[in-house]
């Protein structure tokens, strides 16, 4: 639940029939190699089979389930105004995640060469961007819930909590969308550092994207910051 700051994710949640596929990412398609697209069409990921090597992280599961309930109660609170809900949700997200750590992670190798001032400014811009996208969800939310299905401890204090998205409006009969949360436990406190939808880890995708952008622009973190601010403005203007 830390980084759903991409409209992409919203659209994926909206898909009623199937899950996201690699074939969704072929925007420039024309009938040259028929099979190339044809088979891609049916490569929807099966989310039915989940192996369960380690199921011993109940506290992290409880943590995620409780916070899902908290988030849903904010979204479903009809007595609060939209502005109030946005503010509540922002506090909720900031308490759930370690936004500065995620921001530093997404800088990748460029974190080493960034000055402390640049890191701080980037973390601020990143947080504003993330919050803007979170808040853009409000108009899209239509009753979906998340149900914890299990967890795997990949290292001590580093757990993947698995959930499925239940959509009351989904009549497709397809398996529900899988959403995984990566939860760290430090000094007895849990914090969410990344989440994935259909196998896409979003902070990982952001790191790939930001690193590439910086590589194309002489490592200019101020330029990245200005782009993030512009995107945040666009999200706010649209919603």
């Amino acid at each position, binding site marked *: 639940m830390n980084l759903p*700051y*991409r*409209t*992409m994710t919203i*659209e994926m949640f909206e898909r009623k*029939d199937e899950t*996201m*596929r*690699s074939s*969704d*990412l*072929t*925007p*420039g*398609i*024309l*009938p040259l*190699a*028929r*099979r*190339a*697209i*044809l*088979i*891609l*069409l*049916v*490569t*929807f*990921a*099966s*989310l*039915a*089979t989940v*192996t369960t090597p380690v199921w011993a992280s109940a506290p992290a599961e409880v943590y995620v389930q409780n916070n899902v309930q908290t988030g849903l109660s904010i979204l479903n609170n009809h007595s609060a105004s939209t502005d109030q809900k946005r503010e509540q949700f922002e506090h909720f997200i900031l308490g759930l995640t370690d936004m500065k750590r995620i921001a530093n*992670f997404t800088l990748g190798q460029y974190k080493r060469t960034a000055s402390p001032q640049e890191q701080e400014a980037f973390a601020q811009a990143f947080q504003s961007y993330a919050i803007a996208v979170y808040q853009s969800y409000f108009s899209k939310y239509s009753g979906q819930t998340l149900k914890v299905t299990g967890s795997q401890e*990949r290292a001590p204090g580093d757990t993947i909590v*698995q959930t499925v998205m239940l959509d009351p409006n989904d009549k*497709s*009969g*397809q398996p529900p969308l899988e959403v995984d949360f990566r939860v*760290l436990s430090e000094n007895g406190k849990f914090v969410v*550092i*990344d989440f994935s939808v*259909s*196998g*896409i*880890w979003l*902070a*990982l*995708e952001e*790191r*790939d*994207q*930001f*690193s*590439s952008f910086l*590589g194309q622009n002489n490592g200019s973190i101020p330029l990245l910051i200005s*782009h993030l601010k512009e*995107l945040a403005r666009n999200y706010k203007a649209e919603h």
Partner: protein
Amino acid sequence: MAGFCGRAIGVRAAAALLACWLGGCTTPTPEMLAANDPFEPTNRETLKLNSKIDKYFVIPTVAAYFFIVPDGGRRAIHNFLQNVSLPTVFVNDVLQGETERASQTLERFTINTTLGLGGFFDPATKKFHIPGHGEDFGQTLAVWGVGEGPYMVLPLIGPQPPRDAFGQVVDVFIDPTNYIHFKQHLWWEAGRYYFTLLDLRGQTYSTVQGIQRGSVDYYASLRSLYRQLRNNEIRNGRPETKNLPEF
């Protein structure tokens, strides 16, 4: 001998030209190599070309399709296209040793081809609750241990690393419909491809638009998403726990 030498020189020149096109006549930077994307400049240009074709040809065609064909019709076409591809999925299920999934594919094909009236309806999902899945030979190669190779964006097709591109070619030979010859076979092939294009792009319109609108670097975003989604497909949706970075 002279002819042989001439051909050899020609082949070398062609190879050099191909390498030049792929590499954009530039030396890969450490960042490109780190991203396993040595042809990045060319890939970026190809993505721009694909996006233009998409914008000016594909999307208007899809809009017409949505305008003319009602939702139920589009759903039936979607079901049919999926069903006709299931034999290829089945073979790849078997090649990957996924017996349970192979069984599901076989059941789906049998049910939807008969009760689903040639595949236009999907009772396998709706009535029998047998989940569908996709497979292709690129995934089979991955299960067999073949790496994807350098990232590539192909004109008109999109992200397609060498392993997956090769897999698509093999799938053509796996697909039994390609061995059924009849008079209008060319029209059948063209129609199948055309409607597949319309169906796929219609479904993904808002997703792709969202990625374009929300990206700092659209190209790098697509590259990351393609790889992550593809790996998820190869794992058959099993969660990734090993190859995650430290925060």
